[in-house]
């Protein structure tokens, strides 16, 4: 096992600190990062998404949770996805039932300060979660949703849904969500200007 630098924090240490913390932090590869606040538009889009799923999931063994649910990806990343859906038996890291390890669908709403992480590092780590079937990134600058679906051989197929008339298809939970719902009450710069 490679030696860690002196200030390296183990996942166990992180979880212990985080359980007592007043604010949420992410963990990545030995370090703890405070989570940034979000814009109102970001919050509205998350609420719209989370609001859509319970109805769609009523007859399935799946539940939806919002940014309060900690997810462990790969042992290197612990974070709070904007939206997470898990199905069947929930699996947790360790004895405490507070860190989910088997999400089926994860959705991140992009913002300028997190876009490179959401598309880059986080997606790379999420891809290592065996139970994950889909990962979606949702723009807050325009009506656009990109869904990555896990394929055979560890490949991911990306489908882009664009415009308020489009309907995003979440195959992992057999649900379709119109972008008009995801972006309800969200105004973009050029609309209505």
């Amino acid at each position, binding site marked *: 096992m490679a030696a860690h630098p002196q200030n390296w924090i183990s996942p166990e240490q992180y979880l212990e600190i985080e359980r007592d913390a007043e604010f949420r932090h992410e963990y990545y590869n030995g370090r703890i990062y405070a989570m940034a606040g979000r814009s109102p538009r970001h919050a509205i889009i998350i609420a719209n998404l989370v609001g859509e799923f319970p109805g769609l999931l009523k007859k399935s063994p799946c539940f939806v949770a919002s940014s309060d649910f900690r997810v462990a990806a790969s042992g290197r990343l612990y974070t709070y996805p904007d939206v997470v859906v898990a199905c069947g038996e929930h699996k947790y890291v360790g004895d405490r039932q507070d860190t989910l390890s088997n999400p089926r669908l994860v959705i991140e709403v*992009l913002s*300028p300060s997190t*876009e*490179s992480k959401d*598309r*880059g590092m986080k997606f*790379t780590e999420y*891809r290592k979660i065996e139970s994950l079937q889909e990962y979606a990134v949702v723009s807050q600058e325009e009506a656009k949703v990109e869904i*990555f679906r896990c*394929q055979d051989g*560890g*490949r*991911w*197929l*990306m*489908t*882009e849904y664009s415009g308020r008339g489009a309907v995003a298809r979440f195959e992992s939970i057999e649900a379709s969500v119109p972008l008009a719902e995801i972006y309800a009450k969200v105004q973009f710069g050029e609309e209505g200007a």
Partner: protein
Amino acid sequence: MAAHPQNWISPEEYLEIERAAEFKHEYYNGRMYAMAGGSYWHSVISGNLAAALNAALRTRPCVVTTSDLRINVSREGLYTYPDVAVVCGEPEFVDGRNDTLANPALVIEVLSPSTEAYDRGFKSSQYRTLAPLQEYVLVSQTEARVEVFSRQINGNWLLTEFAGLDSIARFESVDASVPLAEIYAKVRFGEEGI
């Protein structure tokens, strides 16, 4: 046609300014953006990629270009300088001059912290609108990892990830395979300042 704001620059004006400019700029939808310089390792990786692809494509009618060549995705859309591009068959150029390529089959961007969001987000979405383009590739400079996005029928894109120095990246669009050991030859990871 929609009216443009007063400081809107046309593609023709951009090309005229850019052809005489001392530094490179990108263009998108009426505006010009100065391009940042690359780091040492960024440049080493780009050079390795161009050399390895050149060797792999020696017997094929494909040409490898570097970040000196401008590429255009649509008339008022993005004009940019990918780190590496490959064109197979006859190159096609914008407006008759042979300095703005319109038909790359493959473009490669080496990621850097300051441009990662842009490369993964906006720039990738622009590349996806370029009809001749079959693949775009994002290359990490902090670890040995290459992500290949391939155009599928029906407008979807398939992501294949190659990670680790013993893996071999496959570029279907130009029928070439390049070991990551060659892409990252002489590159040291984990150093400050990359």
